[in-house]
């Protein structure tokens, strides 16, 4: 798409702060996580800054740890579709992306919800397809924990393929609505579909005419080999977690090299790592602020809970300002933390525990100090010029095509970025100063599906 010699254009998205300890609800400026005004505020800030899209995550069961609802992070969120449709009324260009699960939904219903959202937003809908499968979440749904972990991408792939057939089941010009001749539909079979595979055996008539984008933009966040392959086959953008130069470049190259096998161009899949940021007047000022925010994100109580997620034991008796437990992690199958994707990241808990103990001893770190260090997710720290430079470097050096920014304060946490970093990116000619199109596909430079 881009001309030779010109810099890559950066894509930016705003992630509504989530239900994890990145979000600092104890900040005096922190507002509601559920009142609609907070969503309006963040979305309008993102649109003022000409961001590509707004992003809303979802989880279908409240998290638990040690058999109790986890109470230290923000708890509670709205229904994804409903908030995005309402945001469509108070924004005009911003893409509206939501996470919707392919396990505890059915394609007919989800396809009509996304097609409706795309109509109601004049072509700004995006779907982040996730695949949670666990029986814990299943307890809130008709079918319970019906899906094996190994089948989750098969179901997601078939779900998406089925939804595509539904999106494509109406020709773009199917509705004539010609009062004179009395022809409403040009073709009496519009919407007809029939689909049978391992997970779905459905047939009939889809009831939403083709939407402005044809299909919603598809995002995918899985990081496993299966997840990357799924993204290369089906997604328009990947929401990755590799925001540093070396890791980012490795991931970027890995997913882009998978594209030709699916007949896809390199630019047809955008890589958008999640990123946090701490802005300061100077780099040193930002570093100081970052240290304060890290302590806010990891209270003593949170440190113990995060340690428990590796140890898989009740560690409530330990002092967060004291040393790490001498006892080893419990490596049995049953896990103390439920409803979190992150617990699966600890592949070898005993080895990790040994590393953490060694590091704590060498650097004289308490439990809380260590957790502050090892769970650090702060991506960009610095003055506006520093952060603008880093973002641009990462994009120009193919570690990313842009970033999904996660503010740590709701709903004003993006304001400073919008006011200080965005103008610098615009000055460099790497970020739009006005929206050139009206749909999310336009913003992301994606082709319209035929």
């Amino acid at each position, binding site marked *: 798409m881009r001309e030779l010699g010109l810099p890559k254009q950066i894509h930016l998205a705003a992630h509504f702060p989530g239900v994890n300890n990145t979000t600092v609800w104890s900040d005096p400026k922190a507002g509601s996580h*559920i009142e609609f005004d907070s969503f309006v505020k963040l979305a309008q800030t993102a649109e003022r800054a000409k961001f590509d899209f707004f992003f809303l995550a979802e989880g279908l069961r409240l998290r638990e740890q040690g058999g109790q609802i986890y109470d230290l992070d923000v*708890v509670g969120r709205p229904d994804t579709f409903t908030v995005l449709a309402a945001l469509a009324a108070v924004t005009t260009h911003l893409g509206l992306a939501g996470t919707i699960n392919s396990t505890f939904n059915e394609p007919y219903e989800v396809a009509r919800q996304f097609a409706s959202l795309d109509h109601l937003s004049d072509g700004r809908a995006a779907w982040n397809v996730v695949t949670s499968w666990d029986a814990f979440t299943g307890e809130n*749904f008709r079918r319970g924990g019906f899906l094996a972990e190994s089948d989750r991408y098969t179901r997601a792939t078939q779900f998406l393929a089925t939804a595509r057939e539904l999106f494509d089941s109406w020709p773009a010009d199917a509705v004539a609505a010609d009062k004179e001749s009395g022809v*409403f539909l040009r073709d009496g079979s519009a919407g007809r579909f029939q689909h049978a595979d391992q997970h779905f055996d459905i047939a009939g*008539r889809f009831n939403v005419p083709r939407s402005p984008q044809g299909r919603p933009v598809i995002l995918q966040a899985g990081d496993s080999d299966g997840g990357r392959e799924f993204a290369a086959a089906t997604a328009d953008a990947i929401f990755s977690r590799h925001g540093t130069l070396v890791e980012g470049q490795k991931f970027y190259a890995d997913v882009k090299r998978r594209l030709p096998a699916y007949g896809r161009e390199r630019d047809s899949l955008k890589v958008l790592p999640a990123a946090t940021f701490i802005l300061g007047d100077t780099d040193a000022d930002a570093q100081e602020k970052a240290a304060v925010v890290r302590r806010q994100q990891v209270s003593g109580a949170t440190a113990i809970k995060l340690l428990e997620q590796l140890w898989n034991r009740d560690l409530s008796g330990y002092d967060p300002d004291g040393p790490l437990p001498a006892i080893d992690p419990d490596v049995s199958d049953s896990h103390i933390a439920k409803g979190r994707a992150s617990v699966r990241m600890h592949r070898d808990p005993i080895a990790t525990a040994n590393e953490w103990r060694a590091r704590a001893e060498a650097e004289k770190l308490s439990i809380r100090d260590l957790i502050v260090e090892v769970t650090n997710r702060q991506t960009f720290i610095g003055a506006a010029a520093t952060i603008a430079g880093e973002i641009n470097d990462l994009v120009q050096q193919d570690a990313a095509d842009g970033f999904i920014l996660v503010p740590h304060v709701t709903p004003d946490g993006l304001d400073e970025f919008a006011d200080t970093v965005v103008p610098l990116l615009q000055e460099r000619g790497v970020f739009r100063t006005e929206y050139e199109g009206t749909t999310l596909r336009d913003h992301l430079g994606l082709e319209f599906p035929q």
Partner: protein
Amino acid sequence: MPDPLHLAVALDGTGWHPASWRSPNARPGDLFRPGYWTDLVREAEAGTLDFVTIEDALGLQTDRPDGPDERTDHVRGRLDAILIASRVAPLTSHIGLVPTATVTHTEPFHISKAIATLDYVSRGRAGWRVQVSGRAHEAGHFGRRTLPMLSPGSLDSVAATQAVKDLFEEATDYVEVVRRLWDSWEDDAEIRDAATGRFIDRDKLHYIAFDGKYFSVKGPSITPRPPQGQPLVTALAHAPIPYAFAAGSADLAYVTPGDADHARKIVAQIPIPHVFADLVVFLADTEQEARDAKDRLDTLDRTVFTSDAAIFTGTPAQLADLLLDWQSAGLTGFRLRPARLPDDLVAITRGLVPELRRRGAFRSEYEASTLRGLLGLARPANRYEGARVA
């Protein structure tokens, strides 16, 4: 002075007459655009109506009882009603928003949080029209169950009666789960206690632990208790099984009497706060013009229009007479189905409403900011709050 009436308008496509889309003022080309719905709901709000309902279904419109048709001369296709309601919510301020959502093939967990969220984005104006689907072709869109083919001719068979009973039994469980999920957070569960680092008091969140014949749902909801506590639950009912369902599960029922006596008999079977009669309306300055309007559409459609609800053709003043007469049978309000949009909606807001106001039978301004408030319903206590104290 009569008791004030409550008025709702049922929005469906270009109106309830199948040829309404060919009326001079109809906007069939805009049906799938957000501005179409915003304009209609704002018009209803200008008339201080209690609420609008928005029709929906998990299948394409059809004129056949047993499955989809191939007709090209009627409106086909629709947008999700909950999403239309949420799209309109930020652009309106007082009118209630009551989308239709089907229970038969969907998840109570999803619908519960969707209606709760509609209540948040509308600041307390959400309701829900519960719809049961006995249509075999809609079941085919989900592929998870087979429903017996129900058609008007077979409704009295033993198998059909049992199928209807099962569908409403499932709907009863469904509404119970949705209502429990709305209550699964106490109002003051969010504490943000910096001293202990706790965002919520988890003792004020409740597992609903519903275990029924059709599904089990553990809870709590992922969405905190909505502004109204319990958004308004409504249902359309035509027969004893749905009457019993509405009486047990809904705050408001829509019924389809043929006259005031019929209305009286139905109302006696649904002892809940509100029973509204549905009426399809063709309104004009003279009775003759209203009849002509209907005849013109019938001619275009080559069929005489019939409906499950009574059809009114006449002037706003005549309609006001009829509403007040039927009100004496115990109805608390009416859900008017405009035969043509926007014509009959505008006749309601600019003709009927002023007429009722002159008679002291309808509000001249909104007296409450929530839908429950407009209907005189208190914000209900949380069922789990008592349980915790006990």
